[in-house]
């Protein structure tokens, strides 16, 4: 598979390396790096810089007895077991056509867990979403788009990042394929259309409100007014 051509700006990699991104954004950057050798290498270097910057901070003393209590925990628990290893492995998802199982890490583990708790929901004709958000100001979702289908025309009060996982989509600005990240900044209004011939799977993170125009916008406002969303 060819390398992606649409990347996030350096400040995203820098913030990721330093641990300054929220979990949804961090997951997107790390998953893009799984497709993109160039960004993976840059991330490695930025992580080394970040580790060096930690050494420039004035160390803060730990509390008296901290080491002893940690050693006691190690002794007590048989702490050799890595708790992450005890999570159930990601089995086949419920009727998702194997979408989750084909996702690259680190996205797959997160999506597998949430897919067992939440249903896919229909956004519009041929567009389904799996909410991956944690209920805060940042929204995140997996999107499944039938070929040729479009997400209704919308704008954003904050940036929106969309990482293509399978297939591709295009809007008035460019075409995006696997590993590409489409960045829609504040004030960009667009209508992403899935390319013909193949289902498009993407991971989208919205850092502000998404506002739809036309009928979808009316329905969105009506749903909110009725307390349905």
């Amino acid at each position: 598979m060819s390398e992606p051509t649409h990347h996030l700006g350096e400040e995203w990699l820098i913030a990721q390396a330093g641990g300054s991104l929220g979990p949804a954004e961090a997951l997107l950057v790390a998953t893009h790096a799984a497709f993109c050798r160039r960004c993976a290498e840059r991330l490695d270097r930025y992580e080394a810089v970040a580790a060096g910057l930690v050494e420039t901070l004035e160390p803060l003393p730990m509390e008296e007895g901290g080491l002893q209590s940690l050693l006691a925990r190690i002794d007590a628990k048989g702490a050799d077991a890595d708790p992450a290893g005890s999570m159930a492995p990601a089995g086949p998802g419920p009727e998702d056509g194997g979408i989750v199982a084909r996702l690259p890490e680190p996205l797959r583990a997160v999506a597998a867990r949430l897919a067992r708790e939440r249903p896919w929901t229909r956004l519009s004709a041929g567009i389904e979403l799996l909410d991956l958000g944690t209920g805060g100001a940042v929204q995140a979702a997996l999107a499944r788009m039938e070929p040729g289908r479009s997400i209704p025309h919308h704008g954003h009060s904050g940036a929106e990042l969309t990482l293509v996982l399978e297939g591709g989509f295009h809007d008035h600005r460019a075409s995006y394929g696997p590993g590409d990240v489409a960045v829609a900044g504040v004030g960009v209004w667009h209508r992403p259309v899935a390319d013909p011939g193949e289902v498009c799977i993407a991971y989208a993170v919205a850092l502000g409100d998404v506002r739809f125009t036309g009928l979808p916008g009316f329905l969105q406002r009506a749903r909110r007014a009725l307390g349905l969303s």
Partner: protein
Amino acid sequence: MISEMPAGTLDREHLADLLEAVALRRDKSAFASLYRHFAPRVKAYLRRQGADSHEAEELAQEVMLTVWRKAGQFDRRQASVSTWLFTVARNKRIDALRRERPVAFDPADPLLIPAEPEQPDAALSQVQRAERLQEAVAALPSDQAELLRQAFFAGRSHREIAEETGVPLGTVKSRLRLAFDRLKRALGEDGGDGVEDV
């Protein structure tokens, strides 16, 4: 207990020896040395990321516990101890301390950083690159280091850095470029062939 050098003077080879001792022999004395060197630094990093004193203490403990559990995953041929351990702390921070507001990077006004050549210098191993970068960071003028900390640890756009520090926006941009130039030179990549502004 082994007698210890003062924190901050442990050299990289010694740190790698300690972490391997933890991995291979579950050596608690070696772990104690690592704790004394890294836990206060991890705590400082977490405070810098916005944790209060209590959260920073607890999370630093969790980070060191994870270091104990995952020491077997450290490979000294692939990684420097500082970077490996920092990655554990960073991931803990992302999961545990939910960032309060999303980053505000403007795609129309990107951070201009001199691009890397497409072929990284094959003469340097990944570990050597990490060590050179860390030495270069330690040698940065303090005003440049502070701006880097703002970008890495606060995820601020350069506009926000200017607002936060009171440094004019143009100066923020040029100082960050200078800092990254120094880091690039430390890898032996001079601003020569194949380099272009992003």
